[in-house]
């Protein structure tokens, strides 16, 4: 089969796994976990036990040692069939304590000791590394079987690359689906579902191969049995086929232990279990799965020995048999089955070991460096735990790959598996003892696990990597059996002995009670003897509830205990009650953490910290929401305040306006009234009478103009002004304005400087209104220009967007900068009113007109004299009051 086809098949298969895991995670995120939580999915995920070692190695094992391979199936089967009630208890206790790994379980049982967890983690890491390497090697070996003709693939170099690519891919998969969230229960629906699917592939491939071997290669079951009988008499293997009770016992014990203690098994068996009820199904279904996986091992092994050349690797019979028979598709299926076995093991193992490494090595170290897990740092903690886990996954897979490269893949598959099994088995005595025996304590656990670890390192692990070499430990036994027997015995003895002679501290006693009875644990099991710790607890409670309420609670508790005063004994009842009441105020995990810290007791577990982090996060969000609401209120208040200020300012403006109008009306009225009274006197000369009547007429005209201006301004300001829009030649309007304005102070000889050609611009506007503005501006110049030889310059420009810009500039002294902004205000007459003759509304009206026309008028500073710029659009804006 071409190498490329194989790679493509692998890639397609991996893509399928990604898709399944992703879909399952999505479904779980949407809360649809019911089908994912099916007991069969759980059972199938347990098949991660059948790693590549079981898939490939069992056949090799059988061909080397006959029925001995069965022991690695028998151990788990016995555990599941015989001790399912024990498993239930394990799952129940673990879930109750939010246990995240086997190390966490042991540490939780023995006083939440993180050092113990760190030790277990160490064993797990050491044991897992060659085991992961073994999976990578199996993938590589299976590739080699097919790639007999690498055809430009670079031979074994390319195959070495295979292991790297597989490792990298697995690391990516594991990081993606193993560290998506940090829920306290540490479940991974995506991974578990993908593993369950792989379990089906594994089983299907193996059974298909078995069927092919029995009915395709041999002539049915009876022929097969004959061949097996003949093979067992083969002198080459007779030695290996002997049933050795000591070795069998050791293997069954170790594999039974492995189903409980291997990190990946603990992960799927305990951590990923939603509840203990699924063990009902798994109790029979998992042994059945193992039976199906083991059924065809011996036939395949026997046929392999018969048909394959003597130098063929028995570990690869499952592949070479169908391949040699030309069954390419079957071989491919088997290859994928093996691939499944290897990948699922690496993924789950990496998740489990990485959880341990991050929870028991990296996070405690980080917390120690950061001193106190103050609540502000909880955000950091979340991120840190996730990153630590990702890093640990990468490290676990990378270590496996390095080990694989370094070892050269020489060791038989089964041997590497047994090393891992026997290593993790060292945790078993403490674990089982902790569950069953109240007297077990931390010192005992240290002693047992420590001793077992040292012996395993010296007798099993180091020899397996070529350090020290085989040692004869016990006469008459093979080295591995002897090493296992010795290490486990010493382990158990140390554990029991030290536990009996050592006295557990109170925390442990309560944890022990909780584990052994597996009842609702005294979760807050702190029996602390020191009475003087009640004081800081009271201080803390006072800060949360207020002094009186706290004192009342403490006094009542003390009285209930029969004590006088206000400091009760720190009994578990009191602490639990206090924590419950505090939880109502500050959240359960925070209360737990605070009581722990103040009462000076137990180190927090990572899941405790995560809960604190969750609550801190929630509190922070709540605070932010409140803060936002407060800011909103403040903003509204500010707006109201501004509106009020505006109204006040408007009111002041209105008063000022009315005052000014009053002044402007009263002034002409005064002259009219005074002179009319004078006129009523009889004795006046005709000349005076004439003059006074003229003054009255003049002042009456002024009053009329004022009223007209006010009316005009009011209409313009309200936007109700009627504009008469037409096409206008700007030149005509300017000419009319200059002519009309010449009536103002006609005695002054004004030089008007115009640039006539540029004035011929067509605009659409209200000619009369524009004229009004221009007359006003030009008249103002005539009135106020103080030059000896007054000159007025009128310039018209056409801006790019159309319309017109008209500048009217005189050569007087202009308006000083402080008052330029005032001139467009109402009644802003700047100088002698006698000279102005108006009420000071002219420019205010001009501005309103220009705004109505869609343009503007502004004072143009820095032109020498007074200068105004009138800006006009090509046409007035829609809805500007035109008809």
């Amino acid at each position: 089969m071409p190498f490329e086809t194989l790679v493509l098949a692998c890639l397609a298969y991996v893509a399928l796994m990604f898709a399944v895991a992703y879909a399952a995670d999505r479904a779980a995120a949407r809360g649809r976990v019911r089908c994912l939580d099916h007991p069969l999915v759980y059972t199938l995920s347990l098949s991660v036990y059948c790693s590549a070692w079981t898939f490939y190695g069992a056949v090799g094992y059988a061909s080397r040692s006959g029925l001995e391979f069965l022991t690695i199936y028998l151990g788990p089967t016995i555990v599941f069939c015989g001790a399912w009630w024990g498993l239930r208890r394990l799952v129940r206790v673990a879930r109750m304590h939010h246990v995240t790994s086997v190390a966490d379980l042991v540490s939780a049982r023995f006083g939440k000791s993180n050092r113990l967890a760190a030790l277990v983690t160490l064993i797990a890491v050491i044991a897992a590394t060659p085991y992961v390497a073994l999976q990578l090697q199996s993938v590589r070996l299976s590739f080699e079987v097919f790639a007999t003709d690498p055809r430009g693939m670079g031979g074994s170099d390319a195959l070495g690359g295979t292991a790297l690519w597989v490792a990298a891919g697995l690391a990516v998969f594991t990081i993606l689906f193993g560290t998506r969230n940090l829920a306290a229960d540490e479940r991974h629906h995506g991974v578990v579902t993908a593993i369950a699917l792989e379990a089906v592939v594994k089983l299907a491939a193996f059974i298909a191969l078995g069927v092919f071997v029995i009915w395709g290669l041999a002539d049915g079951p009876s022929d097969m049995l004959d061949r097996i009988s003949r093979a067992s008499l083969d002198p080459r293997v007779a030695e290996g086929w002997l049933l050795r009770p000591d070795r069998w016992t050791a293997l069954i014990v170790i594999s039974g232990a492995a189903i409980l203690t291997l990190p990946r098994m603990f992960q799927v068996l305990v951590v990923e279990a939603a509840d203990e009820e699924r063990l009902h199904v798994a109790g029979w279904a998992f042994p059945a799965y193992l039976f199906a996986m083991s059924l065809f091992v011996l036939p395949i092994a026997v046929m392999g020995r018969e048909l394959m050349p003597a130098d063929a690797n028995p570990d690869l019979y499952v592949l070479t048999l169908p391949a040699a028979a030309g069954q390419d598709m079957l071989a491919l299926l088997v290859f994928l089955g093996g691939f499944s076995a290897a990948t699922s093991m690496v993924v789950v193992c990496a998740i489990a070991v990485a959880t341990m490494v991050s929870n028991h090595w990296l996070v405690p170290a980080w917390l120690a460096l950061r001193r106190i897990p103050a609540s502000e740092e909880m955000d950091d903690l979340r991120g840190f735990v996730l990153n630590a886990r990702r890093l640990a996954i990468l490290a676990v897979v990378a270590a496996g790959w390095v080990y694989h490269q370094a070892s050269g893949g020489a060791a038989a598959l089964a041997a590497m598996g047994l090393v891992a099994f026997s290593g993790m088995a060292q945790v078993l005595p403490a674990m089982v003892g902790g569950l069953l025996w109240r007297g077990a304590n931390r010192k005992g656990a240290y002693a047992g696990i420590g001793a077992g670890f040292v012996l395993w390192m010296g007798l099993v692990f180091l020899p397996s990597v070529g350090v020290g070499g085989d040692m004869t430990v016990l006469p008459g036994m093979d080295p591995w059996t002897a090493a296992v027997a010795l290490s486990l015995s010493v382990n158990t003895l140390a554990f029991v002995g030290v536990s009996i002679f050592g006295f557990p501290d109170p925390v442990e006693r309560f944890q022990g009670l909780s584990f052994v009875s597996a009842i609702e644990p005294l979760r807050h099991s702190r029996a602390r003897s020191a009475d003087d710790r009640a004081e800081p607890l009271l201080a803390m409670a006072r800060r949360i509830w207020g002094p009186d309420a706290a004192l009342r609670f403490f006094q009542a508790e003390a009285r209930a205990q029969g004590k006088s005063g206000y400091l009760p004994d720190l009994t578990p009842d009191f602490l639990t009650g206090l924590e419950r009441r505090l939880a109502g105020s500050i959240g359960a995990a925070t209360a737990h953490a605070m009581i722990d810290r103040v009462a000076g007791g137990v180190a927090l577990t990572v899941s405790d910290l995560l809960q604190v982090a969750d609550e801190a996060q929630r509190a922070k969000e709540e605070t932010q929401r409140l803060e936002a609401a407060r800011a909103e209120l403040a903003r509204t208040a500010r707006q109201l305040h501004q509106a009020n200020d505006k109204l006040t300012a408007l009111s002041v403006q209105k008063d000022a306006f009315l005052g000014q109008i009053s002044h402007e009306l009263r002034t002409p009225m005064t002259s009219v009234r005074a002179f009319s009274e004078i006129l009523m006197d009889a004795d006046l000369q005709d000349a005076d009478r004439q003059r006074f009547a003229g003054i009255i007429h003049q002042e009456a005209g002024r009053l009329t103009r004022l009223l007209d201006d006010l009316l005009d301004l009011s209409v313009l300001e309200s936007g109700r002004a009627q504009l008469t829009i037409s096409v206008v030649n700007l030149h005509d309007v300017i000419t009319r304005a200059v002519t009309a304005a010449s009536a103002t102070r006609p005695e002054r000889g004004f030089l008007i400087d115009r640039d006539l050609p540029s004035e011929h611009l067509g605009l659409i506007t209200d000619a009369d209104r524009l004229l009004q503005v221009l007359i006003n501006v030009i008249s103002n110049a005539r009135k106020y220009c103080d030059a000896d030889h007054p000159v007025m310059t009128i310039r018209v420009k056409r801006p790019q967007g159309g319309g017109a810009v008209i500048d009217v500039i005189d050569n007087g002294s202009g308006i000083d900068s402080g008052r330029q902004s005032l001139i467009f205000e109402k009644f802003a007459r700047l100088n002698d009113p006698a000279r102005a003759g108006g009420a000071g509304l002219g420019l205010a009206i001009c501005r309103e007109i220009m705004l109505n026309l869609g343009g503007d008028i502004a004072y143009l500073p820095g032109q020498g004299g007074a200068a105004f710029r009138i800006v006009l659009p090509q046409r007035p804006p829609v809805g500007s009051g035109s008809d």
Partner: protein
Amino acid sequence: MQDILMIEDEVNIAEAVRFILSREGWQVALHADGAGALEAIRHHRPRLLILDLMLPNRSGTEVLADLRADPDAELAATPVLMLTARGQVDDAAAQADHVLSKPFDNADLRAIVRGMLG
């Protein structure tokens, strides 16, 4: 020494007041600007000052304050009749001896001035 000095920017009002008061036999001098008002007062040393509240450049209130603060005690004590076109009389005008609102009754004006000049 003049009888009366009137500081008023509205020429028609100034003309009316002068006509009314001169027919009573008083001499009325005129000044039309807040600027230079104090100098005019010092120059004319009137027995009565008629002061408009709204003046260009320097308001009647300011002119009055300047006058009352003048080191020449006799000048500072000049009786002042304040004219105002504002509806109400503000506090600043309280320094005046009399306040008369515009428009006013000619008879009122005559009576007040007569009273003030004794």
